[in-house]
């Protein structure tokens, strides 16, 4: 039921997640933020069990914070991905966390954004674009077709909305509301909170 989408553009990373929190057939909450900040320039987008997601992301965030305080230097996105994967890989055969993640981050030192796909089995892969959850079924082909390296922000946002439109249209479970966030050299910013209704003429409404 969770849908997470992310891709890397020209000096930014764009990530979006649906804002539904549900339990079997019931929608518990419609404004659930799944894109949690790890530090000023990284986002962990979580999907899967809500409790595991909270617990695991807390673990990562607090450990990254501890590293920063102890060593007065920030971890790179690559290192956070490596560390997160290590935690997932050791847990899978003991007490698995049912979380699938997208880690997006901007590294000031390299002046580049990067995106990592991590899943509950302990996989980790650096990707240019990708998705978690049911969205991955639809969004993969759209991004295969339209994603280019070094997309401008406006083009990137258009592409993201294209993806989200498709998710809303094709998923039988209603995921109307999405939250789009961007990471660039200035940090994390909420780009838009959109509500999509493909039946309406004016498909996408911006919600403030």
């Amino acid at each position, binding site marked *: 039921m969770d849908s997470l989408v992310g891709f890397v553009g020209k000096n930014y990373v764009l990530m979006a997640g649906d804002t539904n929190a549900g339990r079997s057939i019931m929608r518990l909450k419609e404004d659930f933020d799944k894109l949690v900040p790890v530090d000023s320039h990284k986002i962990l987008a979580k999907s899967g069990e809500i409790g595991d997601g909270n617990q695991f992301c807390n673990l990562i965030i607090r450990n990254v914070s501890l590293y920063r305080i102890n*060593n007065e*230097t920030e*971890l*790179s996105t*690559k*290192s956070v*991905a*490596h*560390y997160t994967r*290590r935690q997932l890989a050791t847990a899978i055969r003991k007490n698995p966390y049912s979380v699938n993640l997208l880690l997006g981050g901007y590294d000031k*030192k390299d002046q580049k954004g990067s995106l990592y796909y991590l899943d509950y089995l302990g996989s980790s892969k650096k990707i240019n674009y990708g998705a978690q959850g049911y969205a991955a079924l639809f969004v993969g082909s759209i991004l295969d077709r339209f994603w280019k390296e070094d997309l401008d922000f406006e083009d990137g946002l258009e592409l993201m909305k294209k993806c989200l439109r498709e998710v809303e249209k094709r998923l039988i479970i209603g995921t109307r509301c999405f939250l789009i966030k961007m990471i660039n050299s200035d940090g994390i910013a909420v780009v838009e909170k959109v509500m999509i209704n493909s039946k309406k003429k004016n498909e996408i409404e911006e919600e403030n």
Partner: protein
Amino acid sequence: MSRRYDTKTTIFSPEGRLYQVEYAMEAIRHAGSAVGILATDGVILATEKRVVSPLLDQSIISKTEISNSEKLYKIDSHLVCAVAGITSDANTLINISRMTCQRHTYTYGQKMPIEQLVRRVCDIKQGYTQYGGLRPFGVSFLFAGYDKDFGFQLYLADPSGNYSGWKAVAIGTNHNSATSMLRSEFKINKEQTGDNIEGTKELNLKEATKLVVKVLAKTMDSTSLTSEKLEFSFVKKVDGKIVTEILSPKKVDELLKEHKDVIEED
């Protein structure tokens, strides 16, 4: 009177001193000297060998590329250390340093930052001055390495568990004369800097090597400088990659020949 406070590390003297720690530092003062200089494009460590005997089996060096260094050790591909003091004590800490570096890479996928490694070793050393009833490590280390955040670095870690970063440092025998030589070379007068403060010179690796050879020539007991008595190691960037090298005896001889003029200045 101080005899009563000598025997246990975990006891302060009435004057507030830890005698065992001080005695450990004394052990290093009599050890073979080691000099380190931080240059703009690298770090150089040089050490004086203590065990020099024709009976030593050096054949392993010619058969393989393994370094048979007495006082210089590679901790990781970006970090080298020089040892002064009790070598067997040093071996334990070197093993721990190597493990710590690999554990860091295992967890974070990056090379361990130098200061973090030095801090870890020093925390262990400090433990042996406070609890356990064991004697402190009788070793000082010069750690030289490179990391992305702070570039080339040189640290001195002493038996008390203190450490500091240095531009140039000397430990072991004759370290006082070596240090004063280094200080006079590095100092820029107030007139030269233009501001009203004393500055320090910035040397490149070539100039630093020359200075190290000069300092060793002046402070070593023996008359001639050869690869029999000296060991050198570098941390530098080659083609954009960080390279740590402990020089083979042949390369040491070449280096000393290159700087022959500095040696014969006396």
